[in-house]
């Protein structure tokens, strides 16, 4: 399991959060309970299984919703 923090572009509407949360949770290899979308700091934090999923795949999923990922950081848990 690894822990990732993605910095997104500034989020403006609270419904964005729900969209991003649902999209990230639907990916295989994500620890669903760990997904946290921080509205005010525009960050997404989650734990994931690096053998099943790469952080780039998560970035792509968020990009597909129309949100930029500005920076991502992965740490061993």
């Amino acid at each position, binding site marked *: 399991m690894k822990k990732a923090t993605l910095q997104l572009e*500034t989020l*403006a509407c*609270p*419904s964005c959060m*729900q*969209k991003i949360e*649902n999209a990230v949770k639907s990916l295989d290899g994500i620890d669903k309970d760990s997904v946290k979308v921080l509205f005010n*700091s525009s960050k997404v934090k989650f734990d994931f299984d690096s053998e099943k999923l790469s952080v780039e795949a998560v970035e792509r999923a968020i990009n597909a919703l*129309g949100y930029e990922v500005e920076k991502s950081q992965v740490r061993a848990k």
Partner: protein
Amino acid sequence: MQRQILRNKNKIALISGILIAVGFLSKWIQDNTDILTWSLIIASLFGVAPIAIQAYQALRVKVVSIDVLVTIAVIGAFIIRNYEEAAIVTFLFLFGAYLEQRTLNKTRSAIKELTEMAPESALRQMPNGEFEEVEVDEVDVGDILLVKTGAKIPVDGTVLYGEGSVNEASITGESLPVSKEKGSKVYAGTILDNGTIQISADRVGEDTTFGKIIELVEEAQDSKSEAERFIDRFSKYYTPAVLVLGFVVWLFSSNLELAITILVLGCPGALVIGVPVSNVAGIGNGARHGILLKGSEVISDFSSLDTMVFDKTGTLTVGNPSVAEREYYGDNIDEVLGYLASVERESDHPLAKAVLAEIGETTFSPVENTEVVKGGGVVATVDGHRIAVGNVALMEREGVEIDEKVKADIARCERNGNSLVLTAVDGELKVLMGIRDQLRPGVKEDLQRLKKLRVKNLIMLSGDNQGTVDVVSRELGLTEAHGNMLPEDKAAYIKHLIEEEGQIVAFVGDGVNDSPSLALAHIGIAMGSGTDVAIETSDVVLMNSDFGRLPHALGLAKAISRNMKQNIFIAVGVVLLLLAGVLFSDWVNMTIGMLVHEGSILLVILNGMRLLRYKLR
């Protein structure tokens, strides 16, 4: 293509606005309805594109968002050929989103200032001994780093070489420079004002004190209170419900105009944004003033506080006892003070330290035949004189005569809450010292302010004797004060207040001895100067343990809580007003509905922004 459109949302809003203006202008000047109609159609098509894309994306992850409602409403307007409403509604929606983003960024500004203080690069020692600039993320524990004058210290570490003075305002809120030398601890995010130092990295990234503060503040802003979670759940079902309602209205009345109006009116904009906005602006204000409020649950409890319980030593008082009153009897006092200091030098009693600090420099003599009298003091021989140092009981045992004048002095000192240290030389009383733990400067005024903020009870708990406790309590104007309490007695007392009396209780303590009480109280506030402990154990963190920030913290919590209520009131009020308007009159249409909605969103954001400037009067 989709992303292009979304990225240029603001430009699209501008184009659609211009088209609408041109259309109406041409109608007004030339009375040409064709140009008006076409410009409105183009404006709506332009405007609806980003909204429709967002709606589609939301539906794909099973969320019925506001975009969905607006898109359907615009399509409906097209079907009934009401291009005017379609164009204006999309324009208002986009323009509103733009203003929302702009103003939201303002409410977040205070916290942004904080995160921008995070260090970005470091000078790391390479195997060849040279220092090279690297990103702060690349620094590992144990690396040796060079920090030059004016630079930010990149990690928490220990000074290896050099000295300098550091501004630690980002951690402690205190901008007085702190001097550092070999062996001193330095903290990430603080600034080396002068000097050059080499440090070894002890903790990096999110593990540093500064990293923890940022993480805490970020999570606090997004933490949700019970009320907010309710609103979230509510809005999850609310938007689909509005959709269903619109559909039902259309089925039964066949009035498409009315149905799409309901869709627009039902947008829950101000409701979902009102509470988070108050939260983020308020927590931001706190962060700027050296106060960390850990989330909205804390704010809600703190703002409805009944009772504040304080630990005495180290919280209300400075924690270092010192001599407050002294009386000398007879001559040769310098000699006597020398004897006294010599005896006290061999003791590790806290009162002895205070006595030594008071006497300062003196000539010490060898001490012989030291006898410790339990519950009394010390008797010893110095320079052939019999020296007795202790309380009144010891003097009586030694047969020292205490005359009327001394009796009066003793009574006065006790009344003022002093512990007494008497010194007799060869059976003759020479010195009387009253020792007191000094109150923190300004603590009395701070407590008055808390009282003004309608804290009903201010209670002090202490391990000291009841006499001393009563004196401090009277001086500070506390409601109650209890002495002779062990840490477990304090915890039991807090438990009693909460469970038996149903009060909402905050406990302010030193964070080390009092951790059971801190954990039990609804709001725990640790005053410990070890920043880490204080950050982890407290619900409200006062940076640098500054007691004077407590009234601001409480006032702020109350202001945030009021602000949230106002915002909920505005949001719900607007929806009710619009609903009443559409049911009982005919002045509400889609355009007005959207205008009022966007207006109410801006209103709650602006209201929230007031918290950024909050100051305790």
